[in-house]
């Protein structure tokens, strides 16, 4: 409650300040470009396979070979670059940006989400398609935005989430899951502006392997920004960039394996051990 009130008051002050100092116009775009790549620091593990899809004939027919878990891919042969990283301007932008009229599309085909990671402007329409002749359900695990969980039983079904139903609040990231096919997941980055990109992967690099793991933020107005790169398994990294009109800057994000999972596991082991010893001691005492 207190937090919310504080945010409201803060928001009030900020808007007051913006209004009195003569903020820059809304929907402002410029000519600056920030591009670059995201690389893995150190020795990356091999990509892991997703579980076999044999239980659903429709899925297994779509893939002759086991598929890679997209969250574990690092292009070791191509400079340790990482695909499926969401890169966006975290702070530094002024003014508001309207959602584009055209929708973002999330397609379910071959029992995988296409794309695996995508970005959208808050309020933009989301179009969800089922191209598989099998039952998918689309489960949103949003924290700030609407959660939903609905099914599309047949091929060719399309659902559009508009205005009240779509994601209207900025959130990094909203996880989308199919509960029927637990390996299916997609992540949507919801920003208040259109300056975001997802690093390219082997399926959308246009045949140019050097494009893998790269991103490009175009049409930025001149200014000082904080950029963030987000990956589902490797965590987040931020960098500051100052850029002038017409300038193109290249930057590199470095990521490593996220430690939190392992750390907690060790802690848990210790707890178990201690409890075990404790139990032994009490037994001995008796």
């Amino acid at each position, binding site marked *: 409650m207190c937090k919310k009130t504080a945010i409201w008051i803060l928001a009030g002050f900020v808007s007051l300040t913006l209004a009195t100092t003569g903020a820059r116009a809304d929907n402002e775009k410029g000519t600056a470009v920030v591009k670059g790549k995201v690389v893995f620091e150190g020795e990356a593990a091999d990509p892991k396979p997703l579980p076999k899809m044999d239980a659903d004939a429709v899925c297994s027919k779509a893939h002759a070979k086991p598929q890679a878990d997209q969250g574990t891919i690092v292009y070791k042969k191509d400079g340790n670059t990482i695909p499926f990283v969401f890169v966006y301007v975290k702070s530094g932008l002024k003014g508001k940006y309207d959602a584009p009229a055209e929708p973002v599309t999330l397609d379910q085909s071959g029992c995988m989400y296409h794309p695996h990671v995508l970005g959208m402007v808050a309020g933009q329409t989301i179009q969800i398609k089922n191209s598989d002749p099998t*039952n998918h*359900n689309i*489960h949103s*695990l949003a924290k700030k935005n609407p959660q*939903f*969980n*609905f*099914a*599309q*039983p*047949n091929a060719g*079904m399309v*659902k559009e989430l508009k205005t009240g139903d779509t994601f209207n609040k900025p959130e990094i990231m909203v*996880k989308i*899951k199919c*509960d029927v096919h*637990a390996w299916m*997941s997609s992540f949507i980055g919801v920003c208040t502006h259109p300056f975001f990109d997802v690093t390219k992967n082997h399926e959308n690099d246009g045949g140019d392997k050097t494009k893998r793991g790269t991103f490009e933020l175009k049409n930025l107005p001149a200014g000082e920004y904080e950029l963030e790169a987000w990956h589902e398994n490797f965590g987040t990294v931020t960098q500051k960039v100052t850029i002038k009109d017409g300038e193109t800057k290249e930057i590199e994000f470095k990521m490593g394996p996220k430690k939190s999972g392992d750390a907690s596991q060790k802690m848990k082991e210790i707890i178990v051990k201690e409890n075990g010893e404790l139990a032994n001691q009490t037994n001995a005492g008796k």
Partner: protein
Amino acid sequence: MSGHHDHSHGHGDHGHDLPFWRKYIFSVDHKVIGCQYTFTALLFLFFGFTLMMIMRWQLAYPGQPIPFIGKYLSDDIAADGVLVGDGYNAFGAMHGTIMVFLAIVPLGVGGFGNYILPLQIGAPDMAFPKLNMASYWVYFCGGVTMIASFFIKGGAAASGWTSYPPLSVFASSGQTMWLWGMVLLITSSLLGSVNFIVTTVQMRVKGLSFFRLPFFVWAQLVTSFLLLLAFPPLEAAGVLQLMDRLAGTSFFMPSGLVYATEPQNQLAGGGSPLLWQHLFWFLAHPEVYVLILPAMGIVSEIIATNTRKPLWGYKSLVYSAIFLGFMSFIVWAHHMFMTGMGTTLSTFFQATTMIISVPSVIILTCLILSLYGASIRFNVPMLFALAFLPMFAIGGLTGLPLGLTASDIHLHDTYYVIGHFHYVVAPGTIFAIFAGIYYWFPKVTGRKMSEFLGKLHFWPSFLFINAVFMPMFFQGMAGLLRRQYDQTEQLHGAVAHGLTKMSSYGAWLLAIAQLPFIINFFYSMFAGKKVGANPWESTTLEWAAPSPPPHGNFDKTPVVYCGPYEYSVPGKSKDYCPQHVAQEA
């Protein structure tokens, strides 16, 4: 007493001069409340049946758009006219909830109990008329809450009528509405049951000792005790589940849950999903007898009247009903044999389950033996009452393999279970309810329902209801599981798909067979044949009151001289001796 109404009972506050809304809407007259219950519950019965007809489309033609109404259903229920999994589960959960808590219990107890019980004991009204009114309106609010849950985001509750956590705790907000609705419905039943018990004990007329009570009154009395004692645990459980959903407690949520690949950050954890099942079934098994006992009461009345002969073994009937009520509290865990139950506990619950079948067999035997040496009148209420007997027998017998753990391994959660309890409740209780409606319609309206339309209702209904449920035993044996949105997704469902279609066609034809009833009901209300106070030449006290009974019920407070079923007494000129008529010396 020369006036039409007996005001000495303190019921002057709802006489004829009351405004419309006090007389017919917020009435405290047990007869008006009984009619309100009956109308509301019949609407819910129809609604619950409609849900099932839509589900049966999906079962017969999986993944194909629902004809006619598919396009009008919301996105949460049907996508492009095709019922979706959540919609199917919501319809299934709400079909169960509506049929049990909003249709059949309110019909058997709220409707028939309210209207008939005070009349049969010669009382002018219920002991607590305002409590009675409150009971109906709380029930009404519960019903509105349930229906409203279809229109909120995410749709109605979809975790089955049993609402097992953790599924129900993870579920969308329809489940919260379901829980609020249940809290209201339980409160309503509690208010009603207290009233029934006090009324039966305190307000019997002079001469009406306990063993002169019609069996219907006994059935209602035992039912009321079941409601009074079994419902509070579920009310408590419902509140606990609400807390789990809304306040972040974890009464039913264990530690270490991973939902949709996300570890759940529970502050507490350590709850038990099985706790809910115990609390739920502690109510829900007595609930089965809440469904069936009033039906047995209705059938007994109709059989006694239309065989023109005393019921066989009246005292056995009464003792059996009491024993049934008692035993129903210690069989609940036979719904939970598959939760990992050990040998000792399962043997106890199997034993009690076998024992509880004995009083049911005795009641059925008494009713059948009542037919021997009778003079059976095959009118419409009697046809429905007679159909109840074999249908209930099938329902009861098929409970046997489910009540024994070893055979339950194969049959648990299959269509065999669905067939079993529907035989008890649908061709069983619902047929008894129809029998009751045809039987007491003249008392309520002063007019008789058409016999022709009644028979046109009975025979197709009898045929098609068996076409719906008989195949389910075979499907269950073949291993087809219940609560499957698309049965053909599994091998055992696909091989039984022919029978699924048969059930579906049965259900749709059964709906058509109800048209004569609906026409008959409204037509007879206004244009049926006018009848006197006792058209069936029956003995019990409700027939001593005028048809329809005025406020305060009896022109003259009756006095009872004999038992309830004195038919064909040798040496009498008429073949029936009403309870309120003094025996000739």
